């Protein structure tokens, strides 16, 4: 039997594609060598946020965040979705103008945002060190638990008839379908490659690089943090090309646990946690929230983001690869942006109007 679409990879991006494609009435087969969500999706934080460094980043995060919020009513509680909002922090007064500029931009685009002065910031997050100059509050940003969210999207696809084949690795993508490691072939009219940082193994010549990140989770301290809180300097860490950086980024979990990030490293492929990086990341968190030093950490782990040179995903047809669509390179915001990417993929395949202009994410831009 020939499927309509084979989706390679069952991370949140593949899961969102399967969900969107089956919603469009297509027969979908998802192929995953390991367990579903064993890649970046199982390792990341679940912040659903709007970023606004450029128009393309704004459009894709804005569309996706709003879609997640619309879907909240349908989500089972296991997704631990919470519209806790984001607070961006200015560490020094010199950062206030940038904070205000971002706030004005978001407001001009009908995104709810407000500036918190020093005192409002302290009231919103009592564990921040006193005297911070101010913050930018984006109330409609949210968090969820990524593996559960991906599992839910995948289950919805299965309920609409999708088949999920785990324990099978794709070795080659062909115009007629895919070849698997065990020598078998699967035919399909379209192939969607949603393999995150492993994508260069299947499609050569793509500028996708692994970017390692560390996370630490604490024991339960309900109420310790109330919003997803990050320093404005996070943008420098995320958008910069330095080989190594850390930034203050904490999220509350529904259990009362505090999730502490984040680090970014290029050029490392060893997944083992590095105590040097963990120390500087946690020290950065303590600089902003001194009482973090008294919390007990339960676990530290790492994950790899699939980074592209402009940090935007690569979504769309691939040159010289008939019937193949790429959907990878979501760097540190793929939990958020998977919904827009999946919308683009299904519009390409069904010939529908795309939910947003696909050009900034086109594969041929590099």
């Amino acid at each position, binding site marked *: 039997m020939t499927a309509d679409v084979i989706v390679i990879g069952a991370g949140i991006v593949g899961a969102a594609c399967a969900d969107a494609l089956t919603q469009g009435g297509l027969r979908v087969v998802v192929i995953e060598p390991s367990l579903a969500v064993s890649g970046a999706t199982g390792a990341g934080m679940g912040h659903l946020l709007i970023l606004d460094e450029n128009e393309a980043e704004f459009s894709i995060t804005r569309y996706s965040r709003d879609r997640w919020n619309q879907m909240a009513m349908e989500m089972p509680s296991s997704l631990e979705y919470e519209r806790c909002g984001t607070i961006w922090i200015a560490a020094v007064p010199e950062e206030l103008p940038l904070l205000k500029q971002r706030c004005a931009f978001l407001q001009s685009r009908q995104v709810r945002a407000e500036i918190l002065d020093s005192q409002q910031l302290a009231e919103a997050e009592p564990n921040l060190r006193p005297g911070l100059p101010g913050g930018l509050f984006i109330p409609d940003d949210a968090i969820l638990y990524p593996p559960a969210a991906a599992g839910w999207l995948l289950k919805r696809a299965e309920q609409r008839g999708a088949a999920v084949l785990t324990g099978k690795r794709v070795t080659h993508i062909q115009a007629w379908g895919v070849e698997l490691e065990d020598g078998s072939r699967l035919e399909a009219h379209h192939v969607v490659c949603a393999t995150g940082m492993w994508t260069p193994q299947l499609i050569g010549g793509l500028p996708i690089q692994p970017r390692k990140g560390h996370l630490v989770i604490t*024991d*339960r*301290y309900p109420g310790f943090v109330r919003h997803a809180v990050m320093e404005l300097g996070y943008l420098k860490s995320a958008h910069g090309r330095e080989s190594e950086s850390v930034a203050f980024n904490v999220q509350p979990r529904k*259990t009362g646990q505090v999730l502490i990030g984040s680090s970014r490293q290029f050029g490392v492929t060893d997944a083992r946690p590095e105590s040097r990086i963990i120390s500087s990341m946690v020290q950065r968190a303590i600089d902003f929230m001194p009482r973090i030093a*008294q919390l*007990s950490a339960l676990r530290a782990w790492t994950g790899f983001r699939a980074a592209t040179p402009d940090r935007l995903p690569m979504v769309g047809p691939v040159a010289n690869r008939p019937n193949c669509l790429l959907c990878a390179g979501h760097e540190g915001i793929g939990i958020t942006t998977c919904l827009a990417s999946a919308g683009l993929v299904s519009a390409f395949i069904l010939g529908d109007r795309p939910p947003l202009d696909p050009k900034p994410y086109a594969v041929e831009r590099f």
Partner: protein
Amino acid sequence: MIEIRVNGKTLKVPEGVSVAAAIALSGHDRFRRSVAGQPRGPLCGIGVCFECRVTVDGEPHVRSCQLLCWPGMEVCTDD
């Protein structure tokens, strides 16, 4: 003997006794609750399993099997 308080009730315990033992002496068998709300209490007694955590003088998640009582200590179990 020294005096400590367990969940607001004063308790006299011998000097040198662990907080876990003091709580047991006070008649409590539930030290804390799991995420799912199930009762938990000491299991290993050697600081490895973290099942015996209680709040001591306002500090949460203290392993009661690893701490000796001091006079005036305020212990809270999660029940």
